[in-house]
Structures are given as C-alpha cells and as structure tokens.
C-alpha cells in the first residue's frame, strides 16, 4: 500500500515577490551558482541529450511570467529522464524508460494562493495554466499566513550531475544484469532486482526575481537472491554510477540467501539486535516529519513537549544536511529558501526543528530552508538526515554479543503509536541468530513492535555512517547499530 515517500516527492523548490518579471527573465538567462558548479563537471555528448536544454527551461519560465496576471507568480519546472531494467527468475522481465516535464504555477492574488500544473509546454497551455492558478486562488478565503514570494537568492554550489550516470544505456544495464544472472546460475540460485538510472532537473523562479536551478543524476541497484525457501538482499543508491558495484552487491545477497537456508524458529521476545544500515535507515526514516516545526505546533510530533530533554542516548546526534557529500538534492527548498545544515539532535537531546518561512514567522523563528511547495498544510520537513556514526564495525558488534539477532533489513514498517513512536514491521531477507560472539545460523522472520524513542536510548554501539538505501524511507546517511532490548512480538512461518 501507501508509498511513504510522498512528502519528499512533493518537497522541493518554490518562490517569492513582485517587481521583477524582467529581472527574472534576465536571471533566467544567466548561469546560476548551482548550475555553474554542475557545469564544472564535464559532460559527455551522450549525457547532454538526456537534459532539457536550459534555453527551453528559460523559455517556459519567461512565457509563464509573461502570461500571468497575478500579483505574484512562481514557476516550477521539473524535468526527468528515468530508465529502469528489472529482472526476476534470472531474466529481464520489465525494462522501461520515461521522459517527462511538469510546469507548475503558483499565483498570488489578493492574499490568496493556489497552484496549477501541466506537462504541456506550448504557449496556449502555459497561458492556460497561469490562468488556472489565478482562478483557483480567487476562489478561496484569504490565507492568514501568506508571505511575499522571495527575490533573488544565493545558494551554495552542489555538483550532483554525473555524466556517466546520465549516459548509461539499456545495454549497459542489461550487461550488468547478465553478470548477476550468471552468478545466480552458477550457484543454482534465482535472482531478481533492478538497475535504474536517471536525470532530474529542477527549476524554481518567481516574478520577484528568484531563479533557482538544480540538476542531478541517480543510479540505483537492488538485488535479491532466492535459494530454495530463503532469500538475501542488497541495495545501493548513488548519484555517480561508478560507485555502484552490482557484482559485490549480488555476491552479498547470494551469500545471505545461502546462509539463510533452513532457518530455525526461536521464540519472540526482547533481544539485543545488530541492525545493518538499511535496517537502521528504514526505522529512523519514520522520524523525519517529527522534526518539522509544524508537526510540533500541531501536537502530532513525538517531540511535542520533549524538545531540550534528553530522550535518546549520548551517542545519538542527528543533522539535516543537504550539503553532506553522501547526500543528494537541491540546495533550496520548496519556496526557494537556501537550505541550511541544522543540528536536530545533540548527544541525545532534540535541539532544533526545521522551519518553512510561514511557520518561522508564526512561531517567531528563522526559516531553515526546509519548506515544502506552497500551498500545503504540512509546512516543512528535513529530507537529508545524517546520523553521527561510531567506530565499531558490524563484526565487532557480533563478536561482543552473547545472544542477539543480526538483521539485514525490515519490511512493511508502519506507525502504531505516533507519540510513543511505536513502529511495527517484519524482518526480511537475512535474519540471523548471534550466539557467543558468532553468527549461529538463520532464524525465521520476526514481527517487531518497537518504540523509536526507547530504541535510540538503547544503542550500545555505532559503526561508521554510510549512505544507505532501503524501501521504506528515502536515502540517508546512517550507521549500523547494536541495540539492546529490541521487541520482537511474534514469528512468521519462514
């Protein structure tokens, strides 16, 4: 059911003020800091063909601003080119590519705002979408919390466009899959997975002169090995395809599947767990909206009444940092505010929240560059969480454990109690008993019901933080963790 990444998907840029249609058009023709940084990366000819030309983006922005009759106008242009090769049963069974563009216009009229979008970029359609935003805006009561759109901003440079990723072809992906299938065949196993590559371009401009542009690439490889009734899994996601090693990921998944054969059933209960980074990611990812000031204001964050209090262990420090070298994303938020690095939790104490402009004004704080595109009822969200790591390797965690469970990843995680922050879910694709400092065989998968607040107060050891990819949360920088008293409530049949 419901994908959980929707807030991140909608999160991005946005914009600001009046006088400057001319200025915006002028700005649209000039290379911007972020674009300059990206341009320093040499692009191959094959890569460039995947991008919508800047001249076309500039045309769309300037036409919308020309057509708009609103007091203030914001234009968001998102262009994507994505391809995904999917394999199962040791063959490619789905293989897709798509390219698309979205033009989204926000109008402000008489203290009211609304948004309309289209993927048609001819003049008639752009004029129509501008009109639609104006018409919608007029059909509602005035907003109590609307601020003037932003003018020109400066953004720290980020370089996240990698030509080799953009240039990857279906044949490139298929050849990598063939090598993985060969491994599975040799070991009499079955493999399934994906190899995806893509390019995205995001532009946000306002009639007050703001122009923000960001482009980035994305490569992702995820692989499952099936071995009789057992399975193993591994996944990586980077902007730079050269950092992805399908062979190594396949080797890890294959080994876990083989080691998971004939799992034994052990009773549910509280165990010390050693959580590999994807397992950590998919749990702590459920905390991200709790750090939104709007969530605390609405009393639906688990941090309501807990800011400044020591609720986690000394070893838990969390930032939101889009500029971290292992992170991805644009240096501006959905309103065009430059993103800031924010210390969210300092040695176990929740210290700061993130703020959109409107939230900041209402709560007498400063915006942090985490606003979601307007209009929305959610306010803001940190989308680039970075956990402080430690120095204990996973092997050392195992060696120091008398009895525990080693978890590869979790699955189908959902929130049971929003204030105690109890999550439920299942282990999957490699769950092992640890006894007397050694992995002592596979066990049947568990259901857990575990409070995140209690878990982050019970972390005994941390490993180095890495960029991790799972299936329940967007990518973050998290360490492996050793946690005591993790609550497995029931056992399934495999």
């Amino acid at each position: 059911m419901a994908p959980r990444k929707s807030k991140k998907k909608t999160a991005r840029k946005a914009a600001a003020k009046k006088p400057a249609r001319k200025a915006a058009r002028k700005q649209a023709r000039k290379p911007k800091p972020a674009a300059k940084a990206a341009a320093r990366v040499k692009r191959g000819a094959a890569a460039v063909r995947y991008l919508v030309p800047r001249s076309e983006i500039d045309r769309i922005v300037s036409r919308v601003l020309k057509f708009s009759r609103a007091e203030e106008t914001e234009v968001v242009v998102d262009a994507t080119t994505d391809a995904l090769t999917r394999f199962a049963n040791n063959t490619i069974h789905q293989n897709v590519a798509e390219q698309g563009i979205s033009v989204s216009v926000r109008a402000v009229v008489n203290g009211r705002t609304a948004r309309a979008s289209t993927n048609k970029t001819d003049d008639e359609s752009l004029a129509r979408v501008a009109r639609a935003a104006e018409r919608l805006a007029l059909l509602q009561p005035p907003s109590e919390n609307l601020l003037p759109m932003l003018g020109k901003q400066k953004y720290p440079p980020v370089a996240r466009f990698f030509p080799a990723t953009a240039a990857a072809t279906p044949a490139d992906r298929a050849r990598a899959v063939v090598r993985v299938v060969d491994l599975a065949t040799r070991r009499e196993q079955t493999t399934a997975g994906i190899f995806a590559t893509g390019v995205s371009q995001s532009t946000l401009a306002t009639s007050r002169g703001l122009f923000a542009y960001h482009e980035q690439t994305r490569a992702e490889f995820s692989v499952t090995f099936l071995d009789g009734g057992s399975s193993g899994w591994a996944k990586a996601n980077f902007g730079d395809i050269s950092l992805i090693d399908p062979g190594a990921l396949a080797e890890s998944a294959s080994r876990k599947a083989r080691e998971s054969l004939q799992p034994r059933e052990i009773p549910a209960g509280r165990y010390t767990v050693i959580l590999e980074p994807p397992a950590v990611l998919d749990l702590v990812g459920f905390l991200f909206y709790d750090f939104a000031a709007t969530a605390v204001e609405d009393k639906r964050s688990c941090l309501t009444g807990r800011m400044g209090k020591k609720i986690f262990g000394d070893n838990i420090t969390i930032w939101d940092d889009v500029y971290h070298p292992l992170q991805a994303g644009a240096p501006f938020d959905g309103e065009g505010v430059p993103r800031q690095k924010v210390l969210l939790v300092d040695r176990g104490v929740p210290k700061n929240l993130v703020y959109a402009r409107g939230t900041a004004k209402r709560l007498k704080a400063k915006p942090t560059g985490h606003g979601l595109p307007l209009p929305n009822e959610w306010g803001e969200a940190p989308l680039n969480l970075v956990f402080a790591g430690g120095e204990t390797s996973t092997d050392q965690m195992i060696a120091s454990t008398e009895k525990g469970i080693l978890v590869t990843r979790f699955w189908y995680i959902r929130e049971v109690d929003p204030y105690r922050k109890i999550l439920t879910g299942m282990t999957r694709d490699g769950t092992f008993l640890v006894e007397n400092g050694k992995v002592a065989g596979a066990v049947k998968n568990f259901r857990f019901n575990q409070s995140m607040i209690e878990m982050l107060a019970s972390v005994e050891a941390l490993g180095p933080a890495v960029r991790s990819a799972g299936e329940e949360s967007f990518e973050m920088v998290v360490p492996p963790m050793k946690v005591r008293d993790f609550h497995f409530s029931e056992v399934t049949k495999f």
Partner: protein
Amino acid sequence: MMEDWANLALDTAVARGATYADVRVIDVRQRELSTKNGQVGTLVEGESLGLGVRVVADGAWGFAATDRLTKQGIEKCAAEAVAIARASALAKLHDVVLAPEEPAVDTWQSPFVRDPFRIPVDRQIDLLLEADAEMRKVAGVTVAETGMVFRRLEQLFASTAGARIHQVKMQSGAGIVASSFSKDELQKRSYPNSFGGQHALRGYELVEEIDLVGNARRVAEEAVALHKAPQCPEGTRTVLLDGSQVGLQVHESIGHPIELDRVLGMEANFAGTSFLTLDKLGTLPYASEHVTVVADARLEHGPGLGTFGYDDEGVPAQSTDIIRDGLFTGYLTSRETAAAIGEKRSNGTMRAESWNRLPLIRMTNISLLPGAWKLDDLIADTDDGIYMETNRSWSIDDRRYHFQFGTEIGWEIKGGKKVRMLKNPSYSGITTEFWNSCDAVCSRDHWTLWGTPNCGKGQPMQTMGTGHGAAPARFRNVRVGIAFSR
C-alpha cells in the same frame, strides 16, 4: 488526435522490428483540495498528457513513455522501446508468449451524475471548511483536517493486433479527520475511512452522499473520548471488524497473495512473493465456508476503484472466483502469465498508474461477498468480543502470511451488547488461520464497495486505486493487543 499519435507509435515500433506493440495515450485531469484547522491547505489542479509504448522485439519486452507528443517525440519514444526490448533480450531465457485476446474496438465510460470539475471550487472549499469548523467545536480537538480529490482519466488503448479502446473514468474521494493530543497520547478518528475517506469511480454525488458535515461532530467527539477509554486488552478474543477494516484485511491478506506475478517471483525484489504457490490452487482451504471472494472489475459489481471496461492489455473486465465457500479457486492473471496456471485467457487485471508506467497485475475489485447477518444481530450473538473500526496501521510480511492491524477505535462487547469504548485496538495473525476463523459475515445492507486509493507496487513504484466490497464480519480466537504490549 489520440488515435493519430497511437498509430504513429505503433507504426514506428513495427518498422523498428517489434513483433507486437501496444500504446496507451492518456490525458489526466486532477483536482485536490484540503483544509487544516480552518485554513485552506492544498488547492491544486493538474493535467498530464502522454503516451507509453510497450513492445515485444527479439522475443523480449521493452517500454518507453513520453509527453513530447510531436512526430519526432513519438517516433523517438517508440524506437527507444524497441531498443530497450533488444537489450532485454540479452538476458532472455525464453520468448514472450501472450495468451490470445480478440482485439476489441469499443468505447466505455464510467457513469456519474455530477461532474466534480463543474462544481465551483469555492463551493467545495465551503463544504470542507464547514466540516472543519464542526470538528473544531469539540474541545480537545487539536487538528481538524478535511480533503477532496477528483480525477478524470481519458485513455486510448491501441495495439498492433487491431484493438482500439477508448475509455473515460471519473473518480471522486473525500474524507475528514479529527486528531486530539492530550498529555502523552495522540488519538484520531476518520470518516468515512482513513486514507482520505471514501473513494469510488463516481462523480460529486459521492461527496454529497457521505455527509461530511453531519458526521464531523461525532468523529471529533470520539477522538477526544478515546483518551479516557481503557486500553484494548492483550490476549485471545472474538473480534468483529467493521466493513472498511474487513476491506483492508481482504486487500492485504487475499488481494496481494493472489497476484500471479508475485506468485511467479516477478516481484521478489520489492513487494515480495506469495505463500499461495501454484499447488494450492483448487486445494487450499483458504477460509471458512462463510467466505466467498471475487475479483470483479465489471460495472455491475459496483463503481469501485477497480472497475473498468477493459484492462491495460485490452482484455475486457471480468469476474473471477478467488475463494468459493472457503476454497482457494483463482489468481489474478495477465496475458503473459495465464498459461502458468493452465488458463487460455487472461482474466483482465493488468493496470498502469498512468501513461508513463508499465501495466502490472493489480487488484481490481477484490470483494468479500455479503452473508446473511444484520450487524445488530451479530453483536447480540457475541458474548465476549471486541468490535474494531477504521484502520490506523497495517503491516504484513513479504509472503503475506503474518499480519498486524491497528484500528482507530474499539468497542468491548459483553453479553451481546457494546458496553464501552476501547482505545488502541490491534490484532494479528496468520492469513489462512484468520480467514478460517471467520464464522459470520453481515448482509448486503451493511456491504460497501470501499476504495483504497494508495496501493503501491512495482519498480518504479506505481500507486493504484483498488476496490474492496465488504461488510462487517466476525472472527474467533484472534490475538489482540500485542502491538501495545510492553
């Protein structure tokens, strides 16, 4: 225009070497409105037009999609689909074979009374703000939220076999939520369901019928009252589920396991596989004799989110027995997979989120057929049990055996009567054990075709609306309360 674009895509694919191709040209219009605590939140309209070309070349699949609907853009897209298919063939074990299907030339439109896009936005906002205000009149409500969403989808399906199918679907949804925070606890109540309320293949008449304003006060009062209610006990109990929760139980523990692509391992890397291996067809006692479940995409089943004229392979809507009097009898199939269970024809369940996504086997309307009980009689017939309403959390393992659900509110039943409210209800179990413990299903008077608008599946992820007809039902010896045990 749509047919010209489709023909160009098909001609290009064939010229490039495709042995089969189909194309879907889709024009989507959407409107979303929401309020929070008396202020308009989301107010967005959108449109999206594009096409997706699916081809078989060198015996393998390729798919490409574009919104550049120029001659050059469409030709490039179709050529790319063929190139991708040729790359797929590098890792091919056998050629794609499709079950035969007579190419249809037809039109189909979902019926509706009132076009939601012709209802003035300000009138829709006024209704939401009125419901919002009603909820906030109740002391203790900390967040009141309301929302509506409307979607019109026009689609042309065309294939090299000669199919030309034009369909228009109108979808509406609306709902309200009251949240209440007190001391160290957050409770909420939704109406008519969680996940944005009720959703159906209908017009604005759906919104008018569900009476958001008339239910706002009750929902808010229940959210606040939950703080003082006792905790749902832990143990083994008789459980009665309301129709919306039965619908979600069907979705997770019947609808997903019967997807034949899951069973065959095609979703192993993401959504998972299924405990329903092929040997179980026609032999597994999936449920008690009180349980009959169908997959029915036909309009005569109702205007559900899984209702259509034809699926996205051009196969007509059908009704398939999934569980007949407790016995497992059918899977959801496609033209490529039907042969795996010895069928000569797909039962028409291939669906794609939009023009830029590949059709996958998806639930249509997976419905539990009504029984004979009136709800009052069923409660009166229950000596000691818990009645649980409106989903709050849901989780199930990757083979669809072990599940756990939480609901927003519960009611303790003693001596045939609802005696008191319970907070934080939850229950868990193993799919087949749970369905075999069902001893009563309520009648058609209590039966609703619920809409689940947010079913995720596939890589890249696709979100699909599915329908689930269900009435309240009773289950014996169910484990309850473990989600909150300390």
